[in-house]
């Protein structure tokens, strides 16, 4: 840790730069009138201001000579400008739009508009995903086409991208890779939506920037913006759910000056057992978590630094736990609701620390991100005071990235990335799922981009090496040392005009077997199975073709995004007919070839005659099969999701901002693997109403009902499907969000 801090400090440049003041104005393209309260953000350094009533704004501080200025305000198309301070007149002209068509993306090779990326990147604001409030982040992500949620009750939610989950989906928080024992089917994201502003999803192995494993995709969480320059904000939010008698309370403090920016967040949530549609309760589905988060940013005109820290602690009851050979499903449902934690229980602690330094040059930027994550997982199963499993996972990471514009049309990004992981069982646990082990990853990559007026090409190569070493023999298996290497590519072409965008991307990726797949030999209470690994497993290799076509105008948007992912040496956990301790034995096995294919469709219509009405629909379909046509297990049900949103203008201080109806239809899943069972189709209906009380410090009030029809259903990806435990029934919620204090300097 000491060396880590020293290295981080070594990158702090010492230089004297004079402050600048930039004055500008935001105006409407047609009427030329001022646009008030627009958010104007210098993307490279996360520095933002709000335009005044007359549309003017002032940014003070040390700014790079060239930077990207993002301006957004409801009712207008987001403006992205590449600014060169020497020849900018300070005007930002916004076009009136009713559908947000384009966003700047940060997870791609370049910070570019979505339509310029040869990789399709799905970008969503968390506020949009939470228009109908969600109990956890996984539920919110599952609003995105092609993204699903595999859950263990309300407490554990893991994203599933294009049918793949767990280790095959790489999650990053502001560029820091999150490693939190995601190999376990019952280990959640280890993150809440606290302080997260938006999320970007790259589906499939298309990105070369984030290393091995992302065969399903990359989920890139981006923090909320800091307070506008010169302002301090103290905010509070509370959410209350009837189904779990649960609360989520959040507190945040943000402060921003022309020299530095700070954001501090804290939250605590507590939920009792959830109520089933029958009125009974899912026993031991209770959970609580606490979170703390801090971000600090500062910059000069040639350099910017961000330090970020996130702490997440969770105590999660494990429902459906049994060692009985004959399972009585009714025994997992209770007539009494409980809140006090009891065994079996899972206790998680995640610490995520990152320090990122960016250096701006005339023709690009260099950045170095150093990170340290520490995860501790403790499971109490049979005893209240003696854990069954108690393990640490420490991960030290680096990512060096160099973006360089050779000419205005040609640019590249090259980088080196790696991590050093240490898995250790403490001597407190009575069992071990994995041996103590080390893992070392290193990779280098280069991606070239060529932009013409209406089209762009991106192509790149990445070389990776992973070394896995177990430090001890384990359950009769000798010490293991394996070396995995891989070369991958990505090549894409995009052509976009005002009305349409066409994109094709061909890419490859790899995933080396995880230690749990190589060396597991033990009882995993969280998943209710005895798992046995195979030391001879080989690298999984994926090759994906992804095509997308987008048709859009001021009132209409249609997207179709088919894909085909061809995976060699696909590792599956396969049930068998053997039992150990009355639990089924599962073996990690390798399938020679798996075909994954499907498509996402989405439609957004905003009629010209009714500007208050938004109609959204999306359909996601996925199929996965072996070469011989046999289905692969745990592939999500096809989903049709439709939203009707009524949004209203401010006519008085207290007004309804929006009313949202959502209908989701999940079709029957009868393409199933051996030992898997069919899942029935189901419908869900949700509603929410969001109100704004526009005082000096506005108050936002939300209320809604989830699962209005009290539908009894078990999703195909539910980990409680084996005990036929339904999902929560009808759930009323209310929320209140307010800024307690807002001060100007």
């Amino acid at each position, binding site marked *: 840790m000491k060396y880590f801090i020293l290295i981080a400090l070594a990158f702090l440049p010492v230089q004297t730069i004079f402050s600048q003041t930039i004055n500008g104005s935001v105006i409407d393209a047609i009427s030329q009138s001022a646009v008030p309260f627009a958010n104007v953000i210098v993307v490279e350094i996360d520095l933002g201001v709000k335009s005044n009533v007359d549309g003017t704004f002032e940014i003070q501080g040390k700014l790079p000579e060239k930077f990207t200025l993002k301006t957004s305000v409801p009712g207008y198309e987001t403006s992205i400008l590449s600014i060169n301070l020497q020849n900018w007149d300070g005007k930002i002209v916004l076009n009136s739009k009713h559908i947000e068509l384009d966003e700047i993306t940060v997870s791609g090779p370049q910070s570019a508009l979505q339509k310029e990326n040869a990789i399709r990147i799905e970008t969503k604001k968390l506020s949009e995903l939470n228009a109908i409030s969600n109990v956890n982040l996984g539920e919110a992500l599952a609003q995105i086409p092609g993204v699903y949620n595999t859950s263990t009750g309300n407490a554990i939610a893991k994203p599933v991208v294009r049918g793949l989950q767990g280790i095959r989906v790489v999650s990053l928080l502001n560029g820091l890779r999150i490693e939190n024992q995601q190999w376990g089917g019952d280990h959640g994201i280890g993150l809440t939506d606290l302080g997260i502003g938006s999320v970007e999803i790259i589906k499939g192995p298309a990105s070369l920037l984030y290393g091995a494993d992302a065969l399903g995709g990359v989920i890139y969480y981006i923090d909320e913006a800091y307070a506008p320059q010169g302002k301090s904000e103290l905010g509070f939010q509370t959410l209350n759910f009837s189904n779990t008698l649960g609360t989520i309370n959040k*507190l945040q403090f943000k402060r921003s000056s022309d020299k530095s920016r700070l954001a501090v967040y804290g939250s605590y949530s507590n939920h009792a057992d959830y109520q089933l549609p029958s009125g009974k309760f899912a026993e031991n589905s209770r959970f609580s978590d*606490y979170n703390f988060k801090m971000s600090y940013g500062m910059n000069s005109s040639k350099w910017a630094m961000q330090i970020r820290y996130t702490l997440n602690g969770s105590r999660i009851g494990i429902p459906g736990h049994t060692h009985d050979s004959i399972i009585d499903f009714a025994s997992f449902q209770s007539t009494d609701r409980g809140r006090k934690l009891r065994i079996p229980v899972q206790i998680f602690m995640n610490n995520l620390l990152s320090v990122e330094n960016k250096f701006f040059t005339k023709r690009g930027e260099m950045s170095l991100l150093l990170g340290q994550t520490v995860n501790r997982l403790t499971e109490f199963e049979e005893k*209240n005071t003696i854990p069954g499993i108690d393990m640490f996972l420490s991960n030290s990471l680096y990512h060096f990235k160099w973006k360089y514009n050779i000419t205005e049309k040609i640019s590249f990004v090259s980088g080196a990335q790696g991590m050093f992981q240490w898995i250790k069982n403490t001597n407190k646990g009575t069992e071990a799922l994995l041996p103590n082990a080390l893992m070392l990853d290193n990779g280098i990559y280069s991606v070239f981009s060529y932009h013409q007026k209406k089209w762009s090409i991106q192509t790149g190569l990445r070389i990776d090496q992973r070394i896995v070493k177990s430090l001890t023999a384990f359950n009769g298996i000798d010490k293991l040392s394996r070396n995995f290497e891989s070369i991958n590519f990505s090549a894409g072409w995009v052509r976009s005009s005002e009305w349409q965008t066409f994109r094709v991307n061909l890419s490859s990726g790899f995933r080396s077997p995880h230690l749990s797949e190589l060396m597991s030999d033990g009882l995993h209470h969280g998943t209710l199975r005895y798992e046995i690994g195979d030391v001879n497993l080989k690298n999984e290799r994926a090759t994906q073709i992804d095509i997308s076509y987008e048709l859009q105008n001021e009132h209409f948007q249609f997207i179709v995004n088919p894909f085909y992912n061809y995976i060699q040496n696909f590792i599956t956990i396969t049930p068998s007919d053997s039992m150990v301790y009355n639990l089924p034995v599962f073996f990690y096995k390798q399938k020679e070839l798996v075909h994954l294919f499907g498509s996402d469709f989405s439609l957004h219509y905003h009629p010209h005659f009714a500007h208050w009405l938004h109609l959204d629909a999306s359909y996601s379909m996925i199929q996965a099969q072996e070469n011989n046509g046999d289905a692969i297990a745990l592939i999500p049900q096809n989903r049709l999701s439709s939203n009707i949103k009524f949004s209203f203008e401010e006519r008085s201080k207290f007004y309804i901002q929006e009313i949202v109806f959502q209908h989701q239809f999940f079709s029957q899943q009868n393409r199933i693997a051996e030992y898997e069972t069919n899942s029935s189709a189901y419908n869900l209906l949700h509603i929410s109403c969001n109100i704004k009380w526009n005082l000096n410090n506005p108050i936002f009030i939300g209320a809604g009902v989830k699962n209005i029809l009290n539908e009894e259903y078990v999703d195909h990806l539910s980990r409680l499907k084996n005990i036929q435990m339904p999902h929560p029934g009808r759930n009323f919620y209310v929320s209140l969000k307010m800024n307690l204090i807002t001060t100007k300097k």
Partner: protein
Amino acid sequence: MKKQTVKLFAFVILSSAVLAACGKNKCAECHYDYGSGIVEIGEKCGDSLKVVEADGIVVNDTLYEVHCHEH
């Protein structure tokens, strides 16, 4: 504003301390299996819970594993 900030941090630290303190003195009802039935040995808390779960209970020179569940 500074006072407010100090109060906020004091609240956060205090809340964390309270949360951290919760559950330190855990209690549970304990029993051991005997024949086809169980023998209740009553509520155990804190260190005695830890000891009985770790060491079990000796009855008539026979060591029995003890199972405890919160009530």
